[in-house]
Each structure stands twice: as structure tokens, then as C-alpha cells.
């Protein structure tokens, strides 16, 4: 990845002492984090650990939330949600182009759809797509804006296991081609290990573990070396595995 090394020196996201609280309950308690440009990061945590709060803060979606701290994020940020969030009253291509203007937008939209394997479905209604297809359309919608940072909030959580494996490969491939920084929020330890080059564990409102996963891609779920990472991450999450 030599051509990208100089890019990696410039941080895409920087959080300093980021604090967020709801009704007096502190959810994020002074988070410090730097994500270099082009890095693929996964964020793990229990439900309620504040991982979605962190993502929403970076996305700028946390209006009316009390908090403090410094936050730097790139200008072009795209978000993929757990649900595909396609507007049911727009066909697929207009959904992908939502908020996009200018000449050539339609061409880019078609190209993005082709990239996620949905060429020819431009005129379909969202209700006609399967769960996996809808999520791929959502990926196309975030890619077409050429984001510097891609935020994904448990994007595969609602998909069946087989579709999820295919989506993992697709996401990794898209990342390789476009090289945005990625912050993938998930509760699935295996998903984090297979996809990300760096895995963070959020614990009691702070980054409890910052782990670099240094294994070549594509990774297999059966890779025995990955199980060491797995054990370490599960330990950080407070889960003890029965080894019998």
C-alpha cells in the first residue's frame, strides 16, 4: 500500500476529550481518538456502551445532546445505517442520488449501483429489493458522494448470515478501491476482526482497548491466528469463552 503512506500521516478524524451525556448519564467520558486518513477501523462495545453515540457525534447528528470536547472530521462524510433507509417513495436511482447535484450525477449514480451489483435495478422501488440488495443500494448512496470518511452503524446487523458474509467482502473491496477512512460500529467481534485493520473497544465511555489487526486480506473466519485477537477482544468486552 505504498502509494497511500503519505496520506496516512494526515488524521481524518480527531477526538479530544469528547464527552456526551443524556439526562445526566455520561455516555462518552472524554474519548481521545485519532483515525488516520484511509484507515479501516471497527468500534466494538456492548449495547448501550456509547458506540452509536460516538458515531452520531462524528456524523454531526447529535443535536440537543449535551457534551464537550474537540471534534475534527472531514468535509465529505457518508453514513450507512443499520436499516437501508431508502425513501420508499423514490425509485432506487433517485435514492442513490439523494442530495447530489450537478452534471454527471446520474452517471455516477449508475456507476455506483453497478459497483455494488445492482446494475439494471435503477428503476426498482425500494420495497421490491431484498434486505441485502437494499443495503447495497444504501452503500451505493454513500459511495456516490466520494466520502473521505464512511461511518457505518451496524450496517449488516439486520441481514442474514449468508448475505452478511457477501456484504463483508463487498465493503472491503469498495474500501480498497475508494480508500475512505471507515468507522464501522458493530457488536460482532468476528465481523470486526475480519474487516478492520484496527479494532477499538468502547468501555464505560472510554476507549478500553485499541488493537491493530495485522493480518493480510481477505481474511477467513477460520484463520487460527485471528482467534488470538478474538480472545483478547472478548476479554476486553468481559466475555469469558468456554474452551471445552
Amino acid at each position, binding site marked *: 500500500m505504498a502509494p497511500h503512506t503519505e496520506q496516512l500521516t494526515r488524521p481524518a478524524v480527531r477526538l479530544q476529550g469528547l464527552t456526551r451525556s443524556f439526562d445526566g448519564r455520561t455516555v462518552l467520558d472524554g474519548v481521545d481518538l485519532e483515525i488516520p486518513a484511509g484507515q479501516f477501523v471497527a468500534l466494538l462495545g456492548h449495547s448501550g456502551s456509547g458506540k452509536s453515540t460516538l458515531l452520531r457525534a462524528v456524523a454531526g447528528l447529535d443535536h440537543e445532546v449535551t457534551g464537550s470536547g474537540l471534534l475534527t472530521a472531514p468535509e465529505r462524510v457518508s453514513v450507512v445505517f443499520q*436499516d437501508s433507509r431508502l*425513501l420508499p417513495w423514490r425509485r432506487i436511482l433517485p435514492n442513490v442520488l*439523494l442530495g447530489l447535484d450537478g452534471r454527471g450525477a446520474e452517471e455516477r449514480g449508475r456507476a455506483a449501483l453497478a459497483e455494488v451489483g445492482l446494475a439494471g435495478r435503477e428503476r426498482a422501488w425500494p420495497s421490491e429489493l431484498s434486505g441485502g440488495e437494499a443495503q447495497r443500494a444504501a452503500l451505493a448512496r454513500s459511495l456516490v458522494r466520494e466520502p473521505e470518511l464512511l461511518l457505518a452503524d451496524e450496517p449488516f446487523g439486520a441481514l442474514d448470515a449468508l448475505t452478511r458474509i457477501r456484504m463483508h467482502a463487498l465493503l472491503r473491496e469498495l474500501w480498497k478501491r475508494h480508500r475512505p477512512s471507515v468507522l464501522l460500529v458493530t457488536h460482532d467481534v468476528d465481523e470486526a476482526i475480519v474487516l478492520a485493520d484496527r479494532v477499538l473497544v468502547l468501555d464505560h465511555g472510554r476507549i478500553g482497548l485499541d488493537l491493530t489487526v495485522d493480518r493480510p486480506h481477505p481474511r477467513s473466519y477460520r484463520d487460527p491466528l485471528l482467534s488470538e485477537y478474538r480472545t483478547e477482544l472478548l476479554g476486553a468486552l468481559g466475555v469469558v469463552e468456554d474452551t471445552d
Partner: protein
Amino acid sequence: MTAVTTSTVTAAPAAAPDERPRTRRRALAPGRRLPAARLAGPLLVLALWAAASAAGRLDPAAIPAPWTVLRTGVHLWTDGTLAGDIATSLQRAGYGFAIGLTAGVVLALASGLSRTGEALIDGTVQLNRAIPTLGLIPLFILWLGIGETFKIAIIAIVVYIPIYLNTHAALAGIDHRFVELAEVQGLSRARFVREVVVPGALPGFFVGLRLGVTGSWLGLVVLEQINATSGLGYLMFQATNYGQSDVILVGLVVYGIFGLVSDSVVRLVERRVLSWRRTLSS
């Protein structure tokens, strides 16, 4: 161990009748629709009416025969009275409806899109709704005189209330996730309204529109029968004085046609505009 049910079912079509598949459940849905189902009931009533008239079982002064009503209708149409009255009535309903529609939509948008608007408008409309609109007639006659203006004003009020209420409810019910999406995609306010708010509120708007259309006819009938010197209601009111039950029935038929046609038009538009919806009825 083999698939017991399926094998017996397929292998024994000619066997004893109690070998039939038992997996089939009692059907609880009403089943397939009858052809021309909507017309069957009205046609039956019409047939009974005609039969009773022909048999001389109905007092022609109270309920004239269907063919008498038809003949009177043709007669009124050819001498020009009916056409003129229909035009007057349609104009009243049309103006009132157009004003009510515009007011309902504009107020709903203003109240749904801004908290200030909501504070000023929503409570006022709810209060307005609590007062039966037809109860405003005496006051409006004092304010606007007994001419066309007050009739149009009353119809407009009858129309704007259901349109406002349903459109506003639909606006308030727009999924917050879509608002979030619009923020993430960096939509401008105007584009947010065009891409998310308006399409999201359309289903509710159409419910209001259908109620508003019905309301405009209702208002029209009441207004024309108490204070008018022209129009369908006036024609019917005059007929009462002369005991012309056939003329009254002609008026009712025309009102019925108005209602049916306008409702069908709204439904047709609704089906085309909301084609993205795949509901149970489709």
C-alpha cells in the same frame, strides 16, 4: 419416517375420500370478490323500487316511479333549469373547495415545519374544529351578507379542516430516520421538503382530501336549502313547496353523482401518485 402427509396425499387421489389432505385449513378470509360487487346492492334496490312502483304498491306522490324521476330529469335538463342550477352549485362547491384545499395544505405545512407555526396554528385550528362549522352560518350571514361569499366561506371552512388535520398528522408522523438521512445527505431545507416532507405527507393528505370533497358537498346541500335563490338545493326546496317529489329525487341523484364522481377522481389520482405503496388492497 418418510414424509407421511405428502406421500399419502399425492399417491391416493383415487382412494377413499377421507384420505384427502388434512393440512388444508378452514379459510377465514371472505374469499374471492364477486364480479361487479359494488353495483350489485344498488341495482337490487333499484329493481325492488321499480317492481313495487309497477305493482302500484308505492304512493306516487311520496315515492314516484324510477321512470317518472328519469322523465322529470330529462325534462328539467332540456328546459335549461337543471343545467343552470348544477352550474351554480358546482361553482360554489368548486370555489369553496379550492380555497379550503389551499388553506388546509398551507396551514399544515406551516404548522408541521416550524415550532412557531405549530404554536400559532395548531391550537387555533383544533379550536375551530370543535365548533360545528354549520353553526357559524348565522354569524357569517351577518358578516358577509346572504350572497355567494358566505356560502363559499362556509364550504372552505368545512373543507380545510379535514385536509389540515390529516396532512398535519401525516407530517408529524414522518419517520424521524428519514429526517436524519436528509441531514446526513446534506439536503437543503427546500429539497428536504420536496424529497421527504411532501411525499411522506401525501398519504395523509389524500385521506383529508377525500373527507374534504365529501364535506364540500355536505356544506353545499345545507347552504342551498336554507339560504339560496338558485342552485340544486334551491330547486329541491322549491319542489317541496309544490309537492314535486320527483324533482327532489332528481336533485338527490345529481348530488349522488357529484359525490361519486369526485370521490372516484380523487381515488384515481391517489392511486397514481401513491403507486409506490403496496397496500393490502392491491
